[in-house]
């Protein structure tokens, strides 16, 4: 059953908002189709699984092949391709979509469409994918299939009658979904005899096998032993094995036009096989790479510093390991007068940043301090040199700057009618420029152009809190625009703390600075002496708060029987100080840095 004619192949993916039932539906599809080909597939799965178990390979299936015998009597090869779910990874999503001819648009029948779903639907329509609308969870009492079905049909320009109504939980309607995939998703139409081309839509690093690429073969055929060429990077690649996921790895020795599968290479870093790149065969190379490749650039930057300076080498090693599997993570050493040695890291977005930080802390057992996230600015100096500034510390003095440009995003928010005021207020506060507003089913779609720097400052949390969780957000980069930006410094006991500096719009410097020192004042515990906290721009103090001095810190009774216990109390107190950084005579706890990190409220004049 390995080799199948292209007309019996269907490549599709599932577009859904988090919690709208994507993985439940995927599980149901595997279950239903797995039962059909139970016997013939079992042997293969077991064979390969033994090896995998031995070697501890646990690669998540990025594309699963199943076989489905449809009502027309034909057995189809269905390739279900996974798509990342978050706004940070929209390029990756677009490449996964490019590997498909169709998409199941799964919408919760009680909740309706969300902004990210909308963005992915537009991507799918742009990519000429056949979109099959599915309302899930129709068994829920709150389901409103009439309303949401009409809206979904309208969104994709279809007939409400064609919107499938299912419950992935109970299994209702799954067969109809598969029948629709077979009937409506076009078969691949690649040139089976042409020079081979395969689209890489994901790649992972496995410590035993090296880099594994997940590919969709567009034209021609790939066989084990072929010498590969990655057309964008120009890298020649040795292939070790080739096969499909069922969902375990099953070696097939070949992949033909229209098929989806994996290629194991001996490469050491996923950066060598980039998502969107085209693989061809070195001695039978295609003349043109597949369209849509883009070099992924980090958009959000922050400094990460080990709390314990001794962890610096371990942190470098951890970053090296993470980079093996994450081509979009960038990092370079950075030294901060306040935080010591660390790294300035670049991420695709805030979620990506959180994921990396969490992995460093959890998987590599590192205690980290993170600076305020920021974006990359373009600066033209008065001497007409062009600079890229990723860290507030690198911003030249104001009198040396001619212009500063910052990245803008087009930001789409979906919100119920009663949340419109809150959303527009927030967008205005964040320097947003109104673009459009239009109704989408029972909600409004509000579009603003906004500096990315404003988004990275807890915009999403603010949006959620101001709309009681009902708003959903998507954004995409629309380019750089000139802005009057200044560097806001924070001074503790008169000394600027570089880790707390930020680049802000000059009109927001005062409210931000004020909010910042207020928040620091609340999170920095009493010190041994009174400590002024000041916000300043270019030496001019904008706001000031004072951390009060400790007045009493003694151990009450301390006689012969108490000495060991009192000593242990002091040890415990010391333990609490481990997460503190000392700036001169001021001790700043990590929460203080975090309080600045989540500074969004700043100057919005509306604190939580």
């Amino acid at each position: 059953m390995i080799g199948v004619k292209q007309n019996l192949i269907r490549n599709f993916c599932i577009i859904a908002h988090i919690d709208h039932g994507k993985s439940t539906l995927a599980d149901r599809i595997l279950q239903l189709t797995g039962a059909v080909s139970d016997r013939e597939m079992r042997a293969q799965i077991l064979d390969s699984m033994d090896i995998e178990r031995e070697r501890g390979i646990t690669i998540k299936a990025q594309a699963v092949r199943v076989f489905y015998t449809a009502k027309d009597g034909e057995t189809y090869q269905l390739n279900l391709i996974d798509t990342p779910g978050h706004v940070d990874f929209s390029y990756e999503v677009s490449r996964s979509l490019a590997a498909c001819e169709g998409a199941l648009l799964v919408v919760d029948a009680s909740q309706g469409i969300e902004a990210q779903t909308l963005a992915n639907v537009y991507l799918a329509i742009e990519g000429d994918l056949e979109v099959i609308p599915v309302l899930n969870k129709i068994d829920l009492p709150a389901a409103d299939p009439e309303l949401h079905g009409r809206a979904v049909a309208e969104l994709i320009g279809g007939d409400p009658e064609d919107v499938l109504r299912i419950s992935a939980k109970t299994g209702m309607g799954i067969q109809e979904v598969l029948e629709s995939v077979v009937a409506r998703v076009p078969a691949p139409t690649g040139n089976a005899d042409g020079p081979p081309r395969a689209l890489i839509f994901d790649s992972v690093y496995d410590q035993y096998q090296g880099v594994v690429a997940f590919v969709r073969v567009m034209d021609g055929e790939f066989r084990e032993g072929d010498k590969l060429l990655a057309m964008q990077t120009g890298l020649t690649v040795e292939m070790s094995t080739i096969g499909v996921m069922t969902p375990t790895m099953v070696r097939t020795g070949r992949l033909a036009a229209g098929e989806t599968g994996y290629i194991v290479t001996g490469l050491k870093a996923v950066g060598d096989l980039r998502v969107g790149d085209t693989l061809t065969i070195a001695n039978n190379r295609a003349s043109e790479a597949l369209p849509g490749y883009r070099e992924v650039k980090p958009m959000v930057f922050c400094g990460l510093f080990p709390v314990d300076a001794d962890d610096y080498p371990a942190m470098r090693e951890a970053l090296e390991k993470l980079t093996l599997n994450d081509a979009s993570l960038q990092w370079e050493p950075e030294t901060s007068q306040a935080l010591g040695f660390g790294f300035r890291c670049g991420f695709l977005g805030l979620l990506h940043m959180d994921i990396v930080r969490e992995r460093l802390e959890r998987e590599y057992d590192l205690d980290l301090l993170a600076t305020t996230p920021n974006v990359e600015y373009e600066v033209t100096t008065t001497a007409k040199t062009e600079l890229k500034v990723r860290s507030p510390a690198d911003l030249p003095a104001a009198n040396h700057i001619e212009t500063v440009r910052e990245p803008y995003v087009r930001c789409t928010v979906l919100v119920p009618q009663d949340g419109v005021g809150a959303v527009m207020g927030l967008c205005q506060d964040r320097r947003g420029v109104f673009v459009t507003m239009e109704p989408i089913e029972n909600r409004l779609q509000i579009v603003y152009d906004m500096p990315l720097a404003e988004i990275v400052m807890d915009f999403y949390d603010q949006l959620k809190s101001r709309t009681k969780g009902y708003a959903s957000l998507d954004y995409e980069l629309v380019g750089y625009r000139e802005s009057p930006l200044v560097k806001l410094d924070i001074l503790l006991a008169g000394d600027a703390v570089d880790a707390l500096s930020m680049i802000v719009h000059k009109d927001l410097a005062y409210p931000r600075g004020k909010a910042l020192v207020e928040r620091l004042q609340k999170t920095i515990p009493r010190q041994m002496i009174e400590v002024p906290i000041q916000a300043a721009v270019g030496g001019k103090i904008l706001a000031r708060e004072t951390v009060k001095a400790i007045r009493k810190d003694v151990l009450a009774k301390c006689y012969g029987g108490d000495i060991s216990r009192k000593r242990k109390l002091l040890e415990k107190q010391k333990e609490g100080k481990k997460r503190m950084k000392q700036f001169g005579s001021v001790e700043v706890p990590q929460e203080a840095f975090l309080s600045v990190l989540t500074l969004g409220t700043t100057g919005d004049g509306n604190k939580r």
Partner: protein
Amino acid sequence: MNTAAREGAVRHLYVHLPFCASRCGYCAFVVEVGGRDRRDAYLGALLAESGTQSAVLGSLDTVYFGGGTPTLMRPHRIAALLDAVRPSLAAGAEVSIEANPETVDREHLEALVAAGVTRVSIGAQTFQPELLATLDRAATPDQVRAAVSCAREAGFASVSIDLLFGVPGQTTEGLADDIAQAIALRVDHISWYELELKPGAALTRRGAVLPDDDWAADAYETIVASLEGAGYRWYETANFARPGHECRHSLAYWGAADYLGIGVGAVSTIDGERRRNAPGVDRYIAAEGTPERALEHLDTDTQRRERWMLALRLDEPLDLAWSGPPDHPDALERLVDLGLIERVGAQISLSRHGRFVQNAVLSQLMEYA
């Protein structure tokens, strides 16, 4: 270890007398409520332990009977204990006993003086009846005043009272009254502690709420200033004395001297080793003078850190030659700059403000880990 050479060097003896009539609300000590029928057996075990430990004792400068409620032991029993160590007692030794006001009368206190007790520390805690109730204290303010005057008449060389601040429900006015009454008693020595809610104490279990930090800081500052104004020397974090009435036994602890503790739960520190007798009065009695002990070896760094922790409680400077260096000498400079520490040559002392924030200073100087 050269223990033989150190034998006979300990000059301070603590005797733990665990019996109490009832447990106070803030108490989490090793105490034994009731136990009237076991007091002679306990006395026998104490005498046995002092016998097994006699070799470590040198010329005793201080003896301290602490509790529990030591005055629940009749004076003849205290006399018997003192008789057992009398050959070791130095001339002019300080012999202290803790007393609960409601347990003593003139006759009782005179008998203690006759037995050789020179100093009494009376547990007053507060003069506010409603706070005494909160603390589950049995004595009334009148009984406290009566006990103090009886102690004077009985002829103790030093009379001390114990007080608490930061009691749940304590008001600024109530505190001012406590201060005025304490001063009016014209005692020789006052210990004034901030109430701690220890795990296991009844107040803690009842979910009592302590006054806030600023109130407690105000209270502490007021107490210190008022007692100093009345002629007391603030010679230790929580202790005040008329000149010459400082508690020598306590000063030994704060000077990191060796001491022997006998009795249930008692702690000794001798020659770099700290040992704690096991809890449980019945087990202690059954052990006939050789109770089980938990041992803790104090390495030289721990000893050095303890010297700093203890000596900075005092108003007298610490000598670096005696204490050893701090773990963070650079912090010393910074603390001097901040006005928290005063330094003259090798003499280190906390400034007045520094004494109020002693822990914060210590945590900058030392690596308690």
